[in-house]
Structure formats: C-alpha cells, structure tokens
C-alpha cells in the first residue's frame, strides 16, 4: 500500500511518527502552516516557523525517505490581529520560491469574523498574484457550515480563482456536497473525536464518489493520529473495495491535485 499524507503538522510530531508513517506506506507528506497551539507574539515567530517549514522539516523527513512539502500563511486563529497578519503576509513572498512550497494554506476562517474574512481575501490575492494553489481550513463544529459557505462566496467571487486549484479541507457530511458541487476539491480529515472517523469518511467517499476528494490525518500537537489514513484504508479493504480503487483515492487523488504545483513531484516517478 502507498499513500500521500496531504495534511500533517509534522513540526509537532516525533520521529516515531515519521517512522510509523513510512512503515505504513506513506510516500510523501505535505505540511500546511498552522496555529502553534498558542498565539505568536510577533512576525519574527512566523519567520522562524517558515524557515522551519521550508528548510529544516524537509531534512527531518528525508531521514525516513519521505519527501516533505509545505504551504505558507498566517492561519485564521491568529488572523484576528490585523497588524500581525499584515506583517506575516509581507514575509510570505520571500519564501514563496522555496523549492518545496506548494501554495498558500491553510487559510480560511475560525470564528467567521470580519477580520478573518479580510485576511482570507488578502491571502487569496497573494495566491493569485504568485499563481499558487490554495488550501483552505474550514471552521470547527458549529461554525463549520457558515464558515464554509462564507469562504466559498469569497473564492467564487474572485474572477481569477480556479476552483480546481483550491482544496477545501475538513469537510463533513453537511458540507461535502456543496464544496464538490461548486467545483472545488474536498479534504476529509480523520480525527479521533471531531471531524470524521475512518468509518464516516469511507461512507462519505462511497456516497459522493471520490473524484475530487483526499483523506488526511491533519496530525498536529493535539489529539490526532498520524496513521489515520492507513486506518481508513483498512476500513475500505474490510468493505471489499479493490486495491486499485483505494490506490486511486489515497495516492492518485493527492498526486493529481498537488501536481498542479510545479514544485510537487510524483513520489513514484522519483523512485523510478
């Protein structure tokens, strides 16, 4: 079995996690920029974080034979502070040409505030200006449906945003259809308590087909599971899905979306 982990916050994980992922068949990892679990006090903290994402973490992943890619942004949880957000946005261009950067993400909304919306719009402008893919974080729990709809309104109203170059992550049963019907990619996140379990995720895949969907663990510093994607693969096998269908979902789909960035290399091609 081979799979891509398209959303893992590896700076928060141990080398044991890298080892477990490599042993489970992981072929590449993509790391969106995210909240550290606490608010950073200045743009300097983000400068260091972007260095970590673009320079240090790829070396750590390489020790396990894993290509490591990243996405850059200030996440919505820290976007309420507009002054900080402006400082961080102005840092991004100096990192955007790093060879492992895939795009702008994970941007989006957290509590659906006006400031979060403004910073989201600025990130989208940045992505358009530098011709980057976009990875969107949708809000948690009761805020998700409203936030997903607001985010899609902003994306759809921008004449230069192409939905097939945007993945809207953390969809659940009440948001997945709207996201796919609007032409975007949808990410299903596997979490032990919130978001989706492997069984619910596979139900969604069976119900909505799997043409523009990926699965991810979104493993970070909180309760999360770096090998959640292979666990969903076990669930698909239990239900009798073919190896070919599973491979096209957990390997083929991420490769198809991510290959829209010239920086992403199909791991299979790198091996041969």
């Amino acid at each position, binding site marked *: 079995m081979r799979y891509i982990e398209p959303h893992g916050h590896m700076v928060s994980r141990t080398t044991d996690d890298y080892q477990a992922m490599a042993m489970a068949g992981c072929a590449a990892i993509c790391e969106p920029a995210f909240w550290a679990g606490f608010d950073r006090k200045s743009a300097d903290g983000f400068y260091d974080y972007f260095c970590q994402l673009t320079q240090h973490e790829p070396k750590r992943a390489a020790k396990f034979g894993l290509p490591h890619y990243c996405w850059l942004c200030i996440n919505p949880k820290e976007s309420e502070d507009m002054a900080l957000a402006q400082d961080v946005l102005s840092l991004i261009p100096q990192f955007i040409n790093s060879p492992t950067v895939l795009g702008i993400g994970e941007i989006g909304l957290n509590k659906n505030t006006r400031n979060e919306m403004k910073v989201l719009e600025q990130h989208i402008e940045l992505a358009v200006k530098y011709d980057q893919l976009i990875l969107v974080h949708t809000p948690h*729990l*009761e805020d998700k449906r409203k936030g997903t709809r607001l985010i899609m309104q902003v994306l759809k109203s921008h004449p230069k945003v192409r939905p097939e170059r945007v993945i809207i992550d953390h969809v659940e*049963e009440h948001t997945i259809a709207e996201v796919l019907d609007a032409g975007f990619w949808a990410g299903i996140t596997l979490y032990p308590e919130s978001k989706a379990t492997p069984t619910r995720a596979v139900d969604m895949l069976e119900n909505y087909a799997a043409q523009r969907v990926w699965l991810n663990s979104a493993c970070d510093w909180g309760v999360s599971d770096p090998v959640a994607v292979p666990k969903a693969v076990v669930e698909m096998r*239990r239900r009798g899905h073919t190896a070919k269908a599973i491979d*096209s979902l957990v390997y083929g789909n991420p490769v198809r979306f991510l290959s829209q960035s010239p920086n992403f290399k199909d791991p299979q091609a790198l091996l041969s």
Partner: protein
Amino acid sequence: MSQPHPLTATAGRSKGQVADLHFMDARSKLLDLAAFLDRLERATGPEDHRVRGLRAALPLLLAAGDDRVAKILHLWSDPSSAPIEKADTKSASGVWPGIQ
C-alpha cells in the same frame, strides 16, 4: 456534480454484511451514549446548550432516510450567514449556543 468512482460500488452490500462489520461498534457507542445520559441525570445544576443539542438530535436517529449525520450536523450549526464583528473565544463548543 461529481463523477462516479469505483469506490461507489456499494449496491450489492446486504444489511447483514453491514451489521457483521459495524454492529458491535454501534452497540458499544449507543451504550456509551446511554451511560452519558444516565451520568447527567445523577449530576446537579442546569443543563447546558450542548446537552440540549444532543437531546434535540435524538429523534433524528429514528427518522427515515440515509442522511442522519448531515441532518444532525445541520441542527447543531450556527444558522446565521453574516460574519461576526469580533470573536470572544477561539474555540467552538460542538453545538450552536442558541439552539432550543
């Protein structure tokens, strides 16, 4: 609309096969839910909006259709559509606090 995918081939699955795969897991989760409600019964003080939301979702489990999860998630969602001025917290509780 999205196109069909080989993974969608579920038409031939019988109710017995689904039960064989998932009944024990569902049984365990239902008992856990019952135990949670019992534990609440033995606790003191007013009920908060999260539990109100959970109770409001229970009838949806018995309704017809194959979209119970979506219906419950819609029930618990913030029904407003305009961005808010400012957030007083970073987190979410799991159920929209205004739920009746």
